[in-house]
């Protein structure tokens, strides 16, 4: 065995850190009315406090199985959801709590689902990785990499066929750009001119492996866009305003029948990939720098610069805390699912019989 690859490469924590770009000052002047911004401030607070709570409950062994948090990535779910119409479609991954909540799903039932309660948004049958709320346009969280990009095409195709002007939005990670389904989905969306927006949440890592080590393009999503006749769009995923404005443009384009877009939003996980992963494979300096590029304080500062007074913002923060407390109480109060539901809903008739 001859060729040696630098073993150092594999002590990922020792690699040169990939640092965030500074928040763009000019984004203060993006055309977004103040109330919208305040709503995005609130939503980011909700997502932050909700995910913090999920982490605590996981550590208390109340959330079973696994959970993948969006801590540090709140600006993307917030900005995109804000740019969507209530009847638009969201498709997310196992890292889908934030996208589910951002579309308006109630905190209590979402949290109850993570706790495996009958009051859960899926009755306890799906769990953390499959959050779905059709009534809120949240068309599912998909736990196997790639598939949902193809499914999102289908929802967009259906909107096209039914002549509605709904748009489908699919969120996925940087690591997902290397699986076959990504390629098939983007090609089909492009040739069929589907009203779909693909949003890559590039948090620089797949599970524990740095994305640049396994990806031929330096931008995992944008670097592939020309292969599908799409524009290359890379944005600061930690600035809700930049995300919102970019999403608004892409969604309206799709709504006008002008086809799909691929947006790469660069961001970072505050915590590990899932469960109790401490994320030790990341350079300390990198983590530090991104912690300092936290979307929430940045946004808070922006709102102060735009003249919102501190008390209004802190009121919001406290109201959110109360909502998360209520949700927690609601979730904990839920019962375990009744045994009868085990055998329901395999089929549309509500049952599961495979024989006559």
């Amino acid at each position, binding site marked *: 065995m001859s060729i040696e690859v630098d073993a150092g490469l594999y002590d990922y924590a020792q690699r040169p850190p990939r640092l965030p770009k500074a928040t763009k000052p000019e984004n203060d002047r993006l055309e977004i009315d103040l109330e919208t911004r305040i709503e995005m401030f609130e939503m980011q607070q909700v997502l932050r406090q909700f995910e913090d709570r999920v982490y605590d409950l996981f550590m208390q062994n109340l959330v079973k199985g696994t959970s993948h948090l969006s801590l540090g990535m709140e600006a993307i779910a917030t900005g995109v959801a804000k740019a969507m119409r209530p009847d638009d479609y969201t498709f997310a991954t196992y890292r889908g709590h934030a996208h589910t909540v951002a579309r308006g799903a109630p905190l209590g039932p979402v949290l109850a689902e993570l706790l495996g309660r009958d009051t859960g948004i899926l009755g306890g*049958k799906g769990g953390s990785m499959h959050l779905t709320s059709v009534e809120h346009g949240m068309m599912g969280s998909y736990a196997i990499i790639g598939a949902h990009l193809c*499914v999102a095409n*289908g929802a967009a195709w259906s909107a096209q066929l*039914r002549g509605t002007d709904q748009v489908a939005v699919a969120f996925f990670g940087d690591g997902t750009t290397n699986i076959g389904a990504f390629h*098939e989905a983007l*090609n*089909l969306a492009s040739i069929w001119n589907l009203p779909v927006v693909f949003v890559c949440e590039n948090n620089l890592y797949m599970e524990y492996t740095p994305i640049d080590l396994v990806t031929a393009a330096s931008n995992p999503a944008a670097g592939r866009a020309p292969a599908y006749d799409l524009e290359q769009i890379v944005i600061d995923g930690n600035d809700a305003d930049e995300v919102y404005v970019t999403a608004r443009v892409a969604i309206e384009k799709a709504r006008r029948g002008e086809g799909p877009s691929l947006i790469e939003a660069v961001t970072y996980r505050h915590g590990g990939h899932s469960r109790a992963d401490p994320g030790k494979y990341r350079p300390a300096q990198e983590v530090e720098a991104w912690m300092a590029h936290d979307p929430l304080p940045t946004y808070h500062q922006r709102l102060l610069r735009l003249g919102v007074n501190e008390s209004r913002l802190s009121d919001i923060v406290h109201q959110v805390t109360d909502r998360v407390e209520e949700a927690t109480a609601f979730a904990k109060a839920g019962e375990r699912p009744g045994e009868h539901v085990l055998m329901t*809903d395999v089929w549309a008739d509500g049952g599961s019989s495979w024989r006559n």
Partner: protein
Amino acid sequence: MAELSYREAVARGIAQEMRRDPTLVMLGEDIAGAGGVFKTTVGLLEEFGPTRIRDTPISEQAILGAAMGAAMTGVPVIAEIMFSDFLAVCFDMVANEMAKTRYMTGGQFTVPVVIRTANGGGVRFGAQHSQSVENWCMMIPGLKVVAPSTPEDVVGLMAAAVRDPDPVVFFEHKSLMATKSEVPDTEIVGKLGEARIIRAGTDCTIAALAFMVPRALEAAQRLAAEGVSAEVIDLRSLVPLDTQAILTSVAKTGWMFTVEENPRLCGWGAEVASIVAEEAFWDLDGPVTRITTPHIPLPAAENLEDLAIPSVDRIYETIKKSLG
């Protein structure tokens, strides 16, 4: 009544349902402009137009994803996967997505998709284009599985599959494409989960599917000449499975034989045999016998492929030997 080939029956069944439901669409590779590689979709583009009959790239995952996403949002879809062997390149969509999404979401989704695919051997296409893979789908909770053996059943079960709100995998057998029979001109609507007794008998029960049905029947006729009265069941549908028809027949005959084109291990016949051995054990007068393709990939050479797939001779001799 008009004579129709199995191949023509596919297009007839699809057309019948597309006329009934203006929202039904179909997609697949080379199905529109070319009328399908097996000529099973000839004329559909002309009648229903390119919006409803749509050619795709060679992207099976994208095809089934599009079908699933459209179905989940109110547009029923027929998707063609050209050869059933290719279910392997989109198996995640079949086994992990379509089949599970309703259950996982507590019933929030309904997925009215029919996956049509050319299945089975006998056409010398070799190991990657000849497989009988009904069991690939039967083993997945959340999928319904149909495999018609006659032109009339092709039309009727296509209608039943399209009207069923759940994902149905519809296996069209390559070796039956050219077979013809009389088919009523009126609307035909079959029922999933209903086997058909194609020959009544008292001495043994033979369960067969698709291409194996005519062979089982011929073997039964030869057995009759020897005074053995075999009951032949065309299962037609594996999920739902008509266990009543099977168990009722075995209760009467006491002997159970399955004729399977799939390679032996974990074929549908194993499931049928296990059901009979569990639920009809006291009715049995002897061993439950499975007649299958050996557990090998299919060879291309004519004589070898013929040797591999259960033949009328093999069915006849196996049963004759068992019944002594």
